[in-house]
């Protein structure tokens, strides 16, 4: 007889969502979080896309610590001296509850509180050392030498899943699987943010950047999100390219981004109030391990559920959704009193039916497009050349835009055949 129906390792969006759903279904669940308080170890960009919180709590719109709802979304290429920007602002975002900026040290305590209110037992400041196994089956966890038993364990440890790796349930992370995320939270008065980003009330702005000004072949994406009275700004740096360069410091990229001529004015008079960093799951479908086995399931970032196509970064939505699916699979397993791999395979089935695995499969290989010289170097500099050609008046006859594009391609030593091929690949994968 196990002490718990379920033990959930990790009190982030995946783990807390699983614990909430399990407790709502009268399961006897223990949620173990190593941070004290919850959220104090966790970093996100962070835009929470979608209405996943609504599946956990009816009062989420009133009580969840959402900073701002998204009203404006931009994508921008930065070169050393230029910014090429695509802006999309719409009232549809608010009406359709499209996305919200959040800060994890505020969001996660709310999620964990919801789990507690639903009836889950929660312990914080407690680190699970490893899984407890019997006859090859997971039967609980080991914490500080003591065994705590459960019918099943849900691993929701986040982007650096030590227990899953150390237990051989996930391969050690490699360059292809991850990027390095660095971030600052910059304090600014609410009024200043509203004026600077053309926002009113609780409307918010989010922008994803290609940092085309970086040197030595280093590739990184940037982000800038408005919170209520602060700005979250950061960079997601490709581990592979940073390694190949072996002369650029990850923390310097944060600095370079924040001091770019078209970023620095947005942060002016702001006070850096926190610096943070975390691994980011970036490997897409190829990084996803086997998601279940005898007595266990893996959810959220620990399972590699994240999505990035350069236009948007998503992870917390998949975390919530996969956490809920794991909980539902476990509720069914409990009804059959069968916690075997075959029984818990319902989790995989649920994920395959939901948008989680569908997205992972649709965008298979997307990471090879988003992390490429074409996106990070060639394309930004070509765009800059074309724009300059369009607007610069130098007393010479003007050229057609097509000719400017061709000139720019030739100065970048790109053949039109390759450009078309790359463009086609990009569109097909995005």
């Amino acid at each position, binding site marked *: 007889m196990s002490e718990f129906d379920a033990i959930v390792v990790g009190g982030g969006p995946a783990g807390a969502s699983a614990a909430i759903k399990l407790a709502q279904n009268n399961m006897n669940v223990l949620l173990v979080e190593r941070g004290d308080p919850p959220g*104090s170890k966790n*970093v996100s960009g962070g835009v929470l896309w979608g209405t996943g919180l609504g599946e956990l709590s009816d009062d989420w719109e009133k009580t969840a610590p959402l900073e701002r709802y998204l009203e404006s979304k931009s994508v921008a290429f930065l070169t050393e001296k230029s910014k090429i920007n695509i802006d999309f602002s719409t009232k549809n975002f608010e009406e359709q509850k499209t996305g919200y900026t959040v800060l994890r040290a505020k969001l996660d305590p709310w999620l964990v509180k919801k789990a507690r209110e639903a009836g889950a037992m929660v312990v914080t400041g407690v680190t699970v050392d490893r899984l407890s196994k019997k006859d090859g089956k997971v039967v609980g966890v080991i914490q500080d030498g003591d065994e705590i038993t459960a019918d099943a364990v849900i691993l929701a440890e986040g982007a650096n899943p030590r227990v899953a790796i150390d237990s051989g349930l996930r391969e050690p992370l490699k360059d292809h699987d*991850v990027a*390095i995320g*660095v971030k600052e939270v910059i304090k600014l008065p609410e009024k200043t943010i509203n004026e600077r980003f053309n926002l009113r009330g609780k409307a918010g702005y989010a922008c994803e950047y290609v940092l085309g000004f970086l040197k030595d072949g280093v590739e990184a994406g940037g982000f800038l999100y408005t919170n209520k009275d602060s700005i979250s700004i950061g960079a997601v740096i490709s581990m592979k390219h940073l390694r190949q360069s072996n002369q650029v410091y*990850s923390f310097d990229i944060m600095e370079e981004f924040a001091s770019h001529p078209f970023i620095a004015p947005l942060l002016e008079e702001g006070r850096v109030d926190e610096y943070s960093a975390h691994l980011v799951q970036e490997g897409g479908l190829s990084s996803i391990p086997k998601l279940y086995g005898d007595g266990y399931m893996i959810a959220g970032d620990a399972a590699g559920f994240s999505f990035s196509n350069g236009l948007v970064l998503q992870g917390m939505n998949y975390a919530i959704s996969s956490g809920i699916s794991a909980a539902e699979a476990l509720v069914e397993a409990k009804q059959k009193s069968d916690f075997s791999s075959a029984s818990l395979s319902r989790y995989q089935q649920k994920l395959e039916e939901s948008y989680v695995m569908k997205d992972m499969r649709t965008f298979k290989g997307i990471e090879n497009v988003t992390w490429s010289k074409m996106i990070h170097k060639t394309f930004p500099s070509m765009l800059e050349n074309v724009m300059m050609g369009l607007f610069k008046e130098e007393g010479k006859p003007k050229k057609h835009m097509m000719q400017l594009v061709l000139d720019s391609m030739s100065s970048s030593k790109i053949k039109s055949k390759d450009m078309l091929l790359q463009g086609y690949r990009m569109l097909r994968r995005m």
Partner: protein
Amino acid sequence: MKIEERLSLLNYKTDKSYEHITVNPNICEECPDHFCTFACPAKCYTIIEGKLNFKYEDCVECGTCAVACSHGSVSWTNTKGGHGVKYKYG
């Protein structure tokens, strides 16, 4: 803002009795790249007088070094008992 200043903004509950990350100095001595010094976003890895120096106290538990070190020197475990970095925003 310099990395040292940025790190000084952070709150830590340092575990004086447990170093959650350890490195193998024998491996680090032979290391041809010391990529850890470039990858670690908290500048925990530095070269002092030609030797790799690691300080766990500034670690933000991001997990980068465990991937960055391809020579098997870094042994990474989670902090225990709520020790380590404590973000107020995250």
